[in-house]
């Protein structure tokens, strides 16, 4: 059984996967596997991107996604006569079998199915099954990836990685065959500054506690640039303490439930000298 494994730490956002899919499937049909993909506006493989944080603490997250080739595929339930699962795990919508495209689009919690109105059919990623069956090793999206971020192969060969990977929308319970490594969570970033001395504060202890249960989720020191990056945080509310000998402790609360947080200049003040 085949799986896709995406390592998001290695994705450079080049969009090769997205355009290679179009190169293979637009203006060429691979019947009986697939009809042509429309030239624009529909994406059997797509890279989303989001910009997080504030200047100068900014990260860009790329998220390539395609059909999850679920083992518990809602699209098969929605149209069992038209959608089938192959022995290698790939899910195919038979372009020649009668189906209600709108219902198929609606059935997919991932938005991976598109309604090709011109042809009157529902379409999605075929895992380039036409290539696999003709002896090619990988789908086009994977073959075009330069950094090794996208890989494809037998489930057992990826066992170790799958064990620490996650899937998109696990609560949908569809048992996807597309796994993600290093999917970013939320971050807090700040540059800690002694504004009176006009210096960054190096080696300050930054402690982060979850507000709901006071659990300490991170304890790190600022680096030589006065920066602290607290990453892989769950969307939750936190309390930060910054402390360094000779300085007054700084406390600040952060709500990460909506987005990442950045403080370009977080000011730490010296303990006043005794009068």
């Amino acid at each position, binding site marked *: 059984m085949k799986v896709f494994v995406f390592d998001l730490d290695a994705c450079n956002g080049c969009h090769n996967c997205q355009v290679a899919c179009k190169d293979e499937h637009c203006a060429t049909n691979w019947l009986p*596997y697939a009809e042509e993909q429309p030239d624009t506006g529909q994406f059997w493989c797509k890279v989303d991107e989001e910009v997080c944080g504030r200047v100068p603490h900014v990260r860009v997250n790329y998220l390539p996604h395609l059909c999850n080739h679920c083992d518990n595929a809602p699209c098969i339930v929605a149209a069992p006569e038209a959608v089938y699962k192959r022995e290698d795990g790939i899910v195919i919508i038979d372009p020649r079998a009668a189906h209600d495209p709108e219902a198929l689009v609606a059935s997919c919690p991932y938005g991976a199915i598109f309604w090709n109105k011109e042809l009157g059919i529902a379409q999605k990623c075929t895992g380039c099954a036409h290539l696999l069956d003709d002896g090619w090793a990988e789908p086009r999206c994977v073959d075009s990836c330069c950094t090794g971020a996208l890989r494809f192969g037998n489930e057992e060969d990826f066992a170790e990685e799958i064990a620490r990977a996650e899937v998109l929308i696990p609560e949908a319970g569809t048992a996807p065959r597309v796994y993600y490594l290093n999917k970013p969570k939320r971050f807090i970033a700040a540059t800690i500054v002694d504004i009176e001395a006009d210096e960054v504060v190096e080696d300050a202890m930054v402690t982060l506690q979850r507000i709901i249960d006071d659990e300490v989720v991170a304890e790190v020191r600022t680096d030589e640039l006065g920066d602290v990056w607290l990453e892989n945080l769950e969307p939750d509310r936190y309390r930060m303490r910054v402390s360094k000998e000779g300085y007054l402790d700084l406390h600040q609360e952060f709500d990460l439930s909506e987005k990442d947080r950045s403080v370009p200049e977080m000011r730490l003040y010296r303990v006043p000298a005794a009068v």
Partner: protein
Amino acid sequence: MGIETRGETVYRGIAWSAFACSANTAAVDVKDGKIIRIRPLHYDEVSTEEQRKPWRIEARGKVFEPGKKTLLPPLSLTYKKRIYSPNRVLFPMKRVDWDPNGERNPQNRGLSKYERISWDEATTLIASEIKRIHDTYGPLAIMCQADGHGETKVVHAPHGAQAMMLELCGGYTLQARQPDSWEGWYWGAKHMWGMDPVGMQVNQRNLYKDVCEHGDAVLYWGCDLETTPWGWGGQQPSRMAYFLEELGLKSFFVSPDLNYTGACHRGKWIPVLPNTDAALQLAIAYVWITEGTYYKEYVESHTVGFDWFEYYVLGNEDGVPKTPKWAEEKCGVPSYTIKAFARYWAKHAVSIAHADGGGMIRSPFSHEPARLEIVLLAMQGLGRPGTGQLHMIEFGQFGFDEWNPMPRSEKYFEVPGAYHGWMETIGRQNFFPKTMTPQALTLPEGEKLRWYGHVVCTAPRADQFVPFEFPADGAPMIHMVVSDSPSWTTCWNGGYSMQEALRNERVETIVMQHPWFENDTAFADIILPVNTMFEEKDVAVDNWSGQFNMMYIQDDCIEPLGESKSDYECAIEVAKKLERYGGPYENLVQRYTQGKTVDEWIEAGFESAQADSLMTYDEFAEKKMCLAPTADGWEDDPVALRAWYDDPASQPLSTPTRKIEIYSTGLAEHFPDDTERPIVPHWIEETEEHKERISSDRAVNYPFLMVTNHPRWRVHSEHDDVTWMREIRTCKVEGPDGYLYEPVWMNPVDAGKLGLEDGDVVRVYNERGSVLGGMYVNERIMPGAVYQDHGARVDPIVTGKCGLDRGGANNLICPTATTSKNAAGEATNGFLVNVEKVDVFSLAEEYPEQFGREYDPSDGLRVSAWLVDGQ
């Protein structure tokens, strides 16, 4: 239910350096005259591992290898869309109101439409115009625009084929192209450390391995290795950067924008206002000098004139110490960050990476930050383990293998014997710099244009001391333009001036040949249809992948579309008609082609490559692929500047003193009074020609500094019609009128002040004119700066000075002046603009014809918009 999915595979370089060198080797599957797919070449398809001898860089317990397939950019993968673009020029065309025997209406260039004509009519017209110009003014009255980046072809060379032909019948005046992506290194750094011909650290041997083993950090200073290498080098630099991270090196991204490198690699972004790097650099030097944290002995033994620099930095020269606080006001980096950054650098082994471009090197006075970078590298003992100026693009360019930080290949293929392209400028008298073309075309009779140097990227340092003028004594002004690179206005400085110049009455005839109707083609009188690289058989070399070097025969994949021909064939067609005039044109076709077929040219190319030790021509003709292995013993090559570091006398530089000349003796001798490029590098606030600082009076009206990077989703102005790119988030922004505008990035702080939102259509403008764009409000650009990639396709609403362009081709509003008064480079980044929201619907009412041009959001403007009756 298996089906046949394969086709016949053609190996083909899909790149746009234009010159006979590149990378991006792809496997193109063709079936029944149709391109099925473009995919990476897997090296195993054409060679065995024993033949390749793949290198291994081992450092800190980890291994980096070349990879098993070529690392194509999306620009190559999507090329089908460019080949079959609805914007292809498929037959010869003539401007409807250009009558060579009557009214030529030059004032209507850029406005009037075109009609289809036959090849016979087109070439007869061109030949008779050449003959007439030759007879009336002399051959030098024809300017050849025959340079720049276009499809990489060899026998069918995209640039210069027509110039080679004209050279055989009297000559021409050449528009000489500058190194537009490394101006500052060329005009500045060379005077400090030689390093001909580029001005960057041209000895790179084993530098990447050295940084892997000994480096602590890499500064990506304006460097976007996730963008600029794509056009002709592919994505190996991305893998290289990932490996450095894996080894634990820290990355810094120093640029106004969190560019595409900063977007995917992890590190510290230091946002610096456009073209203020020199202030940041001086403040770093100030910290090191005042804290005594630089390599004093090295500076004494390896450099000349540090005392002059120190005197200036400490404020003894002008009463202004170049403190971090001083710099903060100019460059926008907090002084505490400058100090921390300077101290970090002084404690670690730090390299600076470049991949061509980066704003500072293409801005006014770019020679100053370039020289200052060399000073900083020298102050930290340049050449000691893990330090250097790392070049992450164009590995082994110009055929010298030390200009490559990656493991050496046994062979750097060059095929000059097959090349019909762009000729060297060096030695030529009849030329002018490309940065001065508008001035040259409009020069008042009796006046001269003056500059220094041949300006071409291969010229040595001392060439910049040679004065030139146009027109040379006795030579004519320009009366005819023959161009195979109609994209001046989208790539150079002051494009609206160029549009104006192309309408100059003195320019009687403009002939352009190009595969697509774009940018400057709308200013032509006659247009010849050129085919794409996929439509011709040719030879290719791949030296720049950072993987394995190759030379190969690329068969044509499809028949030429419409009536298109290659640039080489276009020149032959014109030559045929010129022959009729006899005299200097006699036997022109034979002299031009030497009677050789394409296959014979390929054979001549193979012979010139001197690759006999790898294979014979017969083998090459049969296998079509010649791959060079990694050189044996590459690991033992001495590291770049290590010997220099140990003993400067053992590896002297090419400067007059053989050392790093912080006091540039060449400039002192030839330009002692130049205050714009002074003998010792300085912060230049502004000059008469360039008032592009936030301190300038102009900033009251134009308060933002503009970033115009080399584009992510194009090569300069190519690829803007590729449908699969245009639907990518950062490629275009859809306006309320459905038009896809070129994105304008603005920080939410500035957007908030101006009341602008995502998707708004805005006018980016200064007194030189305006271009439109679509707002992308985001945190990848610092407050005070505005970002828009350069090279969007021109969609003219109002042409010429103070014009308005819908496409967003911001070179139109760049400064017209060159880098500085004695440096004829381009200044196309870091200039002042303002931004305001426009109502596209009322603009459309005001300019119904321009807004009514045939346009499809998926691919943009179409050639049919410019044809009478939309043929």
